[in-house]
């Protein structure tokens, strides 16, 4: 009888020890996990989440030149920017810019990826050439095109001249400036987009093509019925990334046009930059930044939502 109760008691105390050991174990693994993640979490907190909240906060204030808040103005900054012709022009230019650059970039890159994916001798060389613009910085690319667009010496106007046409002020004519910047951007972005699409093409199972060959399918039939559908997740990814990149355009504007002529190329990030670091209007600049944030948030949300469902995954 007494033996039994001792056994039971020791059994219970054992259980207690196990419980404590488990708790300690869980605590330990939590600490360990946090230690591995801590560097990233801290940096995200300091340089991403806090600045984001601070941007939203600033957007409701007027500030002094050092960025300290002075007067709370509520939604005034937002009302101001949405009635300001300059900002509205900036929004319009930004959307036009997205429209000009994204479809053409993706289309050209897709074409290049398809012809570079054929099993031919020397495709390695061509792949490297096609991806080369990824290794060319914004500054360098802009300098190249600054020369190409040069009104007197630039190659483009020399070609026009050769055909007896009038020279165009590519970067100074409001009708042409945004197009000129778009061409530069397309050229710069092709490298990255091409690489991603080529990766997508190469991950398509070659059995699909072999079985299509056995069925006697032609080149364009295979392209339409196998390549494009199988590539659709990659295409979708590339489209959203290119759109997001277009919203974030800055360097080429700074070097090619500084937002001119007549604010035609004053894309949103450039507009924020000017408002904040040239005019020192941090409140109104923050309001613009919040608009940019919302635009990009919508794009990424779209990507997450439709990326998986609407697009055919293998």
């Amino acid at each position, binding site marked *: 009888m007494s033996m039994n109760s001792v056994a039971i008691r020791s059994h219970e105390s*054992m259980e207690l*020890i*196990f419980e404590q*050991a*488990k708790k300690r*174990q869980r605590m330990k693994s939590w600490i360990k996990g946090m230690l591995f993640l801590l560097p990233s979490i801290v940096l995200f907190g300091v340089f991403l989440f806090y600045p984001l909240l601070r941007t939203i906060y600033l957007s409701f204030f007027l500030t002094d030149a050092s960025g300290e808040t002075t007067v709370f103005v509520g939604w005034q900054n937002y009302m101001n920017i949405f009635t300001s012709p300059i900002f509205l022009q900036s929004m319009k230019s930004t959307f036009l810019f997205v429209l000009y650059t994204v479809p053409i970039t993706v289309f050209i890159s897709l074409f290049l990826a398809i012809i570079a994916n054929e099993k031919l001798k020397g495709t390695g060389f061509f792949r490297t050439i096609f991806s080369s613009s990824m290794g060319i910085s914004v500054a360098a690319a802009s300098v190249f095109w600054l020369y190409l667009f040069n009104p007197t010496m630039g190659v483009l106007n020399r070609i026009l001249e050769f055909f007896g046409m009038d020279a165009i002020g590519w970067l100074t004519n409001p009708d042409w400036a945004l197009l000129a910047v778009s061409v530069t951007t397309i050229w710069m972005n092709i490298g990255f987009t091409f690489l991603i699409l080529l990766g997508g093409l190469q991950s398509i199972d070659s059995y699909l093509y072999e079985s299509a060959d056995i069925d006697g399918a032609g080149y364009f039939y295979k392209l339409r019925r196998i390549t494009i559908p199988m590539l659709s997740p990659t295409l979708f990814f590339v489209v959203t990334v290119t759109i997001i990149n277009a919203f974030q355009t800055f360097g080429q504007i700074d070097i090619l046009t500084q937002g001119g002529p007549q604010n035609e190329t004053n894309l949103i990030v450039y507009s924020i930059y000017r408002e904040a670091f040239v005019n020192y209007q941090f409140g109104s600049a923050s309001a613009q930044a919040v608009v940019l944030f919302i635009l990009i948030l919508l794009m990424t949300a779209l990507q997450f939502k439709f990326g998986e469902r609407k697009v055919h995954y293998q």
Partner: protein
Amino acid sequence: MGQVELMNISKSYDKQKNVLNEINLSIEEGEFFVLVGPSGSGKSTLLRMIAGLEDITAGTLKISDQVVNHLPPKDRNLSMVFQNYALYPHLTVEQNILFGLRAKKVQKEEQQLRLTETAAMLGLSSLLKRKPKELSGGQRQRVALARSIVSHSPLCLMDEPLSNLDAKLRANMRVEIRRLQKKLGLTMVYVTHDQVEAMTMGDRIMVLNDGKIQQVGKPITLYNEPANVFVASFIGSPKMNMGKANFSSDMKQLVIEHEPHIDIDPATVSKRLKEASITIGIRAEHIFPGTPDNTTHHVEVVNVEHLGNETTIAFEIASDLWTAKWPGQWAINVGDNVPVSITGEYLCFFDTESGDLIRPAMAGKSQEVIAI
């Protein structure tokens, strides 16, 4: 005292249904103990709980008389061989073998000593500088074994170590692992889904199904006296022939679903047998070719397999397909009507409802185990 002792061990994830239910087991020192069961039976989970890779939800686990529930794997003094070998792809064979010793900071001279000894034992001496991807499947398996042996842990756990090898190599490795285990006096807990492996290697076998122990015992015991229908059909190849049966009203015959009748000695029918609804089972080798004297039934052959040294024929009994296995070569074709002998003394009786064994075959045992 048992080297490994499991007392009321249970396992559940997220308070769901138990994956393992009240497992009680003790594994002797130096024993080759096999855990066998179909996939999802919980056998790997049990092994991983012994290793300390999975939490024990309830119950007590003792290794060498010490409660180890709360100890991390490294403090349990055991070694483990994984199904995919878990060789470090960036390390050479030598570094792989020494990995554990280095982690435990064993002295350099001791490391070298054990390395040469183990490598020689497993025939790896000439491969020490190679990387795992330069080895064949069998060689990788040996490296995994070496890594386990070099640790000098008294308890070795193996999780389906041979399932990635081809049939021939598997047969060789079975013998080799068994020899090593005996030579080194290791306590081995070996998980497999392959009943042949279990039968050929184990000193004792535990059959697990659906998180519950079905039977623990010596291979021959499991074969001759399967504790229930599950063990009967799981152990042995081809599996035991089974069918639901009733006694005829005079108790002299068994009727398998209305059709074939098997003569039975009423004297051997116990009271319990009479009362239960029963399922009978008979091993394929206990259905004999019929001679003019002993033929009890004629069956229509639906399939024949000529294996050279033996012939298996399949035929329909009631709604089931039964198999008979006869030594030698028999000229039988599909569609033939063949005389066979099925007699009562070779029948195992199970309770249909619980599946439990009521009475093992009376003749089977005495004939099977021949003492030398």
